[in-house]
């Protein structure tokens, strides 16, 4: 069997460095398999998150040869193995150890987004009738596995560290899922404009490119939200209209 070398980040931020491990690679192996094999052979205390091994849970995010990827869905056969494969933790979040970062900020952000608020049930049995096409519009966003790779790659967070002013592509997608939910009646546009910082996004589309679920984050979620914000707050005609409707 062939061997390959993996250059894996070991240690903490203050006290860490990449370290080379060579291990055997077999057919169909993914990066996560190699990491596990190394863990069992020679680095028992190497920290790594994973659960499903099938791209469903979003636990195993890392930067492989510099690209934000899921380790369990990155096949070795798609990587050049004649040079070391670098495996590093996500950079937009504080490092805990090895490949594990502190992603708790994401969970805090979500808590601050106004929760789902359904309209009154429309059927006599207390349920709702919803058309499949209305469901499909938001199902795309609801596919999100919360891997936070889009957050990792977004320059507003990664380079400019605007974690306090910008919720990032994952949560803009989340807000889009709520705003476009066929039953939801909550209003989140003021928040989007102010505390969610949607204005920071300058539509580079890097988030969309890395999303392992193939969610068209920028075009389908962020841009429509931006349009709604513009319509509400910046369109003079709409403003006038809203004055009229209010007074009537």
């Amino acid at each position: 069997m062939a061997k390959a070398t993996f250059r894996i980040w070991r240690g903490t931020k203050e006290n860490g460095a990449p370290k080379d491990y060579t291990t055997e690679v077999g057919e169909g192996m993914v990066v996560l398999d190699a990491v596990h094999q190394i863990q069992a052979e020679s680095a028992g205390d190497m920290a790594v998150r994973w659960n499903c091994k099938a791209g469903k849970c979003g636990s195993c995010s890392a930067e492989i040869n510099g690209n934000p990827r899921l380790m369990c869905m990155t096949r070795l056969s798609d990587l050049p193995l004649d040079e070391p494969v670098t495996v590093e933790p996500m950079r937009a979040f504080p490092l805990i150890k090895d490949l594990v970062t502190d992603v708790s900020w994401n969970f805090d952000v979500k808590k601050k987004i106004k929760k789902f608020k359904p309209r009154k049930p429309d059927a006599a049995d207390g349920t709702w009738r919803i058309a499949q096409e209305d469901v499909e519009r938001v199902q795309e966003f609801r596919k999100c596995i919360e891997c936070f790779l889009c957050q990792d790659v977004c320059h507003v967070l990664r380079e400019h560290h605007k974690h306090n002013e910008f919720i990032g592509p994952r949560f803009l997608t989340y807000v889009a899922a709520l705003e476009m939910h066929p039953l939801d009646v909550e209003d989140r546009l003021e928040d989007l404009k102010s505390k969610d910082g949607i204005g920071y996004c300058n539509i580079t589309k890097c988030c969309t490119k890395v999303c392992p679920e193939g969610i068209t984050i920028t075009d389908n979620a962020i841009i429509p939200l931006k349009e709604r914000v513009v319509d509400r707050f910046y369109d003079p005609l709409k403003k006038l209209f809203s004055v009229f409707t209010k007074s009537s």
Partner: protein
Amino acid sequence: MATEFSTFEHDVLVIGAGGAGLRAAIEASAAGLKVGLVCKSLLGKAHTVMAEGGVAASLANVDDRDDWKVHFADTMRGGQYMNNCRMAQLHAQEAPARVRELEAWGALFDRTQDGKILQRNFGGHRYPRLAHVGDRTGLEMIRTLQDHGIHQGIDVHMEVTVIDLLKDGERVVGALAYDRERGRFKVYKTRAIVLATGGIGRAFKITSNSWEYTGDGHALAYEAGAELMDMEFVQFHPTGMVWPPSVRGILVTEGVRGEGGILKNKDGRRFMFDDIPANYKTQTADNEEEGWRYVTGDKNARRPPELLTRDHVARCINREVKAGRGSPHGGVFLDIAWIQAKVPNGAEHIKKKLPSMYHQFKQLAGLDITKEPMEVGPTTHYAMGGVRVDGDTQMSCVPGLFAAGECAAGLHGANRLGGNSLSDLIVFGKRAGEYAAKFAKENKSGSIDDNQVEALAKKALAPFERTGGENPYAIQHELQDSMQDLVGIVRTQSEMEKGLAKIQELQKRAQKTGIEGNREFNPAWHTALDLKNLLIVSEAVTRAALERRESRGAQFREDYPEKSAEYAKANHVLKRERDGSMKLIKTPVPTVPADLQAIIQENA
């Protein structure tokens, strides 16, 4: 030197944040109590996220002949009447309301033409019954519960592993845990505990389960004096991936067969038609054409044999492989591509109905399921066995200790029907939360023995002090190999006795593990601590399976290939003796009251 602890106090502590744990926590906090929720992974990553096919509830949106009675009868038949009939009844009655409640909390299921929740066919369910979202139903469910739960004031502790339950007399009053990130100890003081820790799949080599499934809740309950039941019934799902080797065991949803996927051997024969069990004969199609009509919604057609119960399908696949009629990598073929001959725009149809299966095979196996058949074989999937609980309240025999979801036993009997787990989680998660809250309100808090806590923490740290000790990963792998080979899908006395001896050997070696590094996010340490639990559940499975000298549901004994009326009478219960040994007790299967008996008969 005294170890450092941080201490937390809650009215109800829920251990596990999958569907069952989240639902329990939501319910307990809705009762106005202070609720703590701990989980080993990040929030939203529990097994529930991986569930694909759907959640079973007799909403009768697709076939109006369905109701709770038929669902109840299906569940009992699937479980070979080893079920706790009270749980099967409550489950069937309450599942529809629990599913609708998810919708009210924001879940968006696929729809019927008239805008209701769509339901799909699944093995052992008489009518299309599984509400679903493509093939990512579990994600929809866990996200809905998670997003609802975070606004309920629940105190969530992520990446925290509970290692011991603490008692005051007979009652549980707390738990000792460590946080994975830093390795610091935490003591949770509480008046009631809900275990919702999931299954035991990591005891086997080929499994659809993640690292989390080390049977922690089973073992914690057992050590606290609770009973484990039905542990011999381990579900081997018929369709796991078999190739390439690194993905062996990863699940291929039953939804593939629900959408018309067929099983074939290397000669192209649909072998499932060759062996249809007597008790399912009247409900099963006897030709391919009728089977296809069934999956496309013809109410007069009977289901194709691919949708027989999982235990049976898994054994048929096993037989084909053993007889040399398998696929190149030791499985059989599962073909969904063939439906293109039947439906317009077939490739798009398949991608839409089974998006994550398409994705999974494309990315992990380089195979396009709209063009080629998949190779599949059995994989360890689900534990029907678990903590023995009261059907109404979910409390174990230890006061204050509740269990719900996969770690509890009773609902599924000898074999679980697909889709009946997700519904189990929300029905009994809610009940466990409700009754745990009630217990907490009615009972004062107990006291925790600091010396005991100190001693337990010291024991947990012992592997750091041993140099040149056993490698915990190696012990885990040896156990998985042994369980797979000796206590797997086909069992015999002599092999299981060997398996038991191996477990006993590993139990000794597991006490001598040595690890390197420090306490910060150290998987070797985590693995070392999990070993105790894996070994307890492995022993329980093996002992219960040895004693059951018959084949029933998920248990297949080569030396006793038939069902036995005598063994139908008792569930096997395992309990810890004072001297620490494991004792097996035969407990009569709960009698089915006349009204329920009549329902079973009507739906035979």
